């Protein structure tokens, strides 16, 4: 049982007084904020860093996501970042000495028409070109991987095949938050919970300070990593309008079961994905509410919709019960790619937001490069395509094949 022996229950993170000066202030104790703080301290020796979190760490998307990771995105700009993120999980598990519970079970993205199958060919080709394992399989092969899958013809959207991405999978989302916070704190980063940023001080186009409900902090660098709240903060505190729509996104889990689903299964036509967590729950979600709002309220419509979808895709689950249903915020940009930028409009002002419903999978790699950016002032090539100016320059990324509707009209 040696591998089970645990050290004494030391505090994971310290409670410390808010200092008046930091070399960098990170707004948001979510995935991206904590990852950047960790890499600043670990790889760049910047330890005089504060993470300010208005609630408790992981309160935002970090504690609400379903922790699906993959690297088979559509565009050549996106894939390298996600690929590196995917490769980082085992590395981070070791570095943080925290079990992130990476289960690289593979993802099946179901296709329900020949047209969709054809469209997926491009994704597969792009992924393979970038060295990411991804291929197409037919309905029968899907069934072999996921015996519970319904591949009959008489459902609303019969399954034709799938894009199969073996290296993807799931993690334990809380573990990532706590592991990063623990290591960042031990390296000297201050994590201030219940500390809300209320304004950002700028002089001569340079960041000088951050005001919080617990006091003023002088700092030359600020990272905006407030998830769903980023666009509001950016506009209210700096007057910078970000092309971000904030929508509610919901997810739910069933009661825990013994292993029944060994892969992540997702379907665009059914607007549903499902995977089994390590605790045995079937986690499912996918669709965003079609109107912008900042509430994290669930809807009766959605849980029913999800039940209807699962009842067709994985009919045995009809005999399983939903247990918990929650919602979080998705900060969506028009091209479904994030805004990663810094030192452009205001010196010392960095942004890592617009992550929508895909900001879990990317947090490790993004944190690493944002830290490098903040420490050196130089943006690495991998982040350059994600600059804010792309919207003004009509250089949107084609991450979405068909445009999603999330504007205020419907």
């Amino acid at each position: 049982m040696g591998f089970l022996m645990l050290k004494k229950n030391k505090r994971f993170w310290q409670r410390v007084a808010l200092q008046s000066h930091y070399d960098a202030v990170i707004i948001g104790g979510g995935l991206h904020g904590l990852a950047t703080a960790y890499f600043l301290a670990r790889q760049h020796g910047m330890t005089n860093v504060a993470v300010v979190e208005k609630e408790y760490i992981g309160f935002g998307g970090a504690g609400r996501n379903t922790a699906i990771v993959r690297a088979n995105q559509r565009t050549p700009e996106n894939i390298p970042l996600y690929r590196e993120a995917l490769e980082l999980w085992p590395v981070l598990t070791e570095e943080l000495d925290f079990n992130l519970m990476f289960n690289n079970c593979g993802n099946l993205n179901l296709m329900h028409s020949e047209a969709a199958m054809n469209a997926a060919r491009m994704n597969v080709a792009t992924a393979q070109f970038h060295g990411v394992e991804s291929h197409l399989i037919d309905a029968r092969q899907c069934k072999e991987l996921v015996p519970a899958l319904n591949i009959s013809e008489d459902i609303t959207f019969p399954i034709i095949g799938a894009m199969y991405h073996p290296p993807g999978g799931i993690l334990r989302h809380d573990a990532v938050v706590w592991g990063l916070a623990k290591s960042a704190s031990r390296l000297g980063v201050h994590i201030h919970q219940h500390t809300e940023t209320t304004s950002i001080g700028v002089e001569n186009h340079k960041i000088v300070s951050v005001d919080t409900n617990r006091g003023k902090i002088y700092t030359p660098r600020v990272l905006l990593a407030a998830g769903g709240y980023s666009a509001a903060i950016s506009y209210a505190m700096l007057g910078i309008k970000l092309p971000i729509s904030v929508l509610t996104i919901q997810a739910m889990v069933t009661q825990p079961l013994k292993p029944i689903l060994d892969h992540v299964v997702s379907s665009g036509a059914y607007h549903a994905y499902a995977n089994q967590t390590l605790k045995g729950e079937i986690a499912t979600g996918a669709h965003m509410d079609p109107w912008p709002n900042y509430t994290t309220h669930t809807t009766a419509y959605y849980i029913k919709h999800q039940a209807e979808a699962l009842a067709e895709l994985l009919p045995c689950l009809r005999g399983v019960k939903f247990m918990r249903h929650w919602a979080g915020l998705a900060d969506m940009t028009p091209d479904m790619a994030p805004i990663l930028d810094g030192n452009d409009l205001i010196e010392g002002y960095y942004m890592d937001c617009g992550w929508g419903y895909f900001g879990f999978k990317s947090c490790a790699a993004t944190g690493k490069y944002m830290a490098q950016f903040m420490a050196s002032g130089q943006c690495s090539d991998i982040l350059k395509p994600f600059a804010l100016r792309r919207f003004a320059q009509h250089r949107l990324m084609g991450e979405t094949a068909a445009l999603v509707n999330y504007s205020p009209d419907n």
Partner: protein
Amino acid sequence: MNRLEKLPTLRINPAHPISFTYKNKTCQGVSGDTIATALYANGIRIFSRSLKYHRPRGLYSLDGESCNTFMEVDRIPNVCAETTRLRDGMTVNAQNVKGTPEFDLLGFLDKLDWAMPAGFYYRSLHKPAWIWPIALKQVRKAAGLGKIAPDFHIPGKYDEIYPQTDVCVIGGGAAGMSAALAAARQGLRVILLESRPWLGGFFDYRTVEYAGGVPLYRRARDLVQQLEQTPNVRIFTHTAMIGAYHHNLITAFQKGTETDHFDERYIEIQAQSIIVATGCIERPLLFENNERPGVIQIGCAHRLAYSFGVLPGKRAVFSVGHDLGIEAAIDLFDLGLEIPCLADIREDGQDAYLVARLAERNIPLLRGWIAVQAHGKTVKKATLSPIDGSQQRDIECDLLVASAGMTPVTAPLSLLQATLSFDDHTGFFLPIKLPPQVHAAGRLLGLTNSLSIEASGRLAGISAAADCGRQDVSKLNEAREELSRLPGPQRGSKLVTAPLKGRKTFICFDEDTTVKNIRQAIQMGFDEPELVKRFTAAGTGPGQGGIPGHNLPLFIAQTNSDGDVKTKATTVRAPLVPAFIATYAASKHDMCKRTPVHDMQEKAGGMMRRIGVWQRARYFSQDLSCREEIENVRNNVGMLDASTLGKFRIWGPDALKALQRMYVSDISRVCEGKIKYSAMCNEDGCIIDDGVIVKRAENDYYFTTSTGRAGSTVEWFRYHTRYDGWNFYMVNLTDVFGVINLAGPNALRVLEKVADTYLSNEALA
């Protein structure tokens, strides 16, 4: 049949036996039984094994707040035996056991708790790295409760209804019934939801006096009768409220009985005003082995006898913190239960009348005492101690009736966005701010006096009526005054845990979380209730907050040395009672539209595919490359059913202006009788739609959109012209016309034939 038969409160019919199979043996229950009461009557004490430690677990509350009695029934996993009605021919089996519930091969895990402190899995199994993939498989196998087969098909009929009502009352106890009657008497439509199979709540099984010599259960039956005679009240029993959403939308599901046409049905209720009268459950008492089979709550013991005719044991020690415990002891003693003593956490404040009746029966009352430990695989002995831990006393028994006090069922209020705050007097989280058109009544407010409970129900009913336009000021004042004259909320016991280390003192049964685990989590820096919950998993199992919901925040507030941590409840989430996916999905009619050529195309061998709300022929070939079809279009002619495209007419003085705003092209350049292809963009400048625009006459156009946009185009136009006050009309003609697309070198010739006229490219230009 070993049942108490003469009690007037019984909810079973011993004359109607029901047989079922447990562990491959036929057992007998009676009509009215739940699976759990029938098993208990058959002498079964261990129902399952716990998740982590494989500890034996048994009947605890009868209302399914934990997964102690989750079983596999007719191949369906995780069926709560406490709340599932017994049916003839059921096959019941224990789950999460290797062996039998009594002798589980994994029982040794209970001894390994030292290796599994709070959140141990975050801190182990990853070093060296190769261990994780192996451990992962084992973790997955060990986790999870029930098993389901990939080809499993749950039988039964699942229905759904969507009733509307003026007032929806949640909870059919005395307060809820009084509220429903009061609202109905104002002439309103009322829906009353009750999760148990019958109305009555805390009154239903109790024989103590209500008033004027009438026992409580009689009073409850009177109220039920009044309700049944009120035509504008619709009663749903066996119906658990599961969700509450914006604009007072309530969801629930009902379990059918033999005479219903459904097994379960989903109910979505649109109400104007809501009354929450869900009463209380019991707050578990925290002591060593507090979840052993044989440790049961007060109401469970009381109801087993008075509703189900099963005397819960032979010799029972009571450790309680509420007068209901004393009342139950007296009632059960009178049925023949031996009671060596009753420990009451409270030093004083017990009801004098009840104390006197205890004394008449020579049951010693130990004030300020508490159970600190239960012994035996099923209870054989209890250790009692004063709450300061100064001495201990062991008492043999086969039952330990234990409860720290009451805890209000405020979850529906939380879902309705009420603000709850910790109340020092009752020790409850009580609503301090209710949203408009939401009311609370009864025991959940801390009331214990029967008359107060009913009066608060009436007040809520009249207030809800006022929400629906039936304002009756004098009645309202009368009800308020009546309530203020009656006894208010009672002081609640605040004791959280017995004086002990808590190595096996369970704050959450489902996740095997002990108070020691909570202390460990706090030591590691998880000082926020929400984080403690996540790190220790307390309250994240099948029963959600049912067992730890109240104790966890109390314990954290008490344990945390930091002064600034307030007693804060953790978040409540729907569904409040786990509900089958089959029930949520219910009848799900797949509704879709067909184009005018549907039958023709199907006959021609078309493979029909779903596209948005439509069914449409996707191809006609056997071979998926569709080579022949494609070649025919290239070399000859092909026809495509384009009827699903959005089709609109827009006209009126400002029609052109509206088109100019929506399309990227200059529509003013389209001449009468001519057509133009163009696109629409969203506010980000991304193309969202394309189609053609035909000018029919001045300010009168016909245009098409993609299939996906057909439903939202009128709104899109209206939205983007909302500030302009323009005058134009739009009709959606999508379902009115069929559309056929002709393509290929011979397209024109086909068209000529159809149109019966000569056509040339030039003529069409």
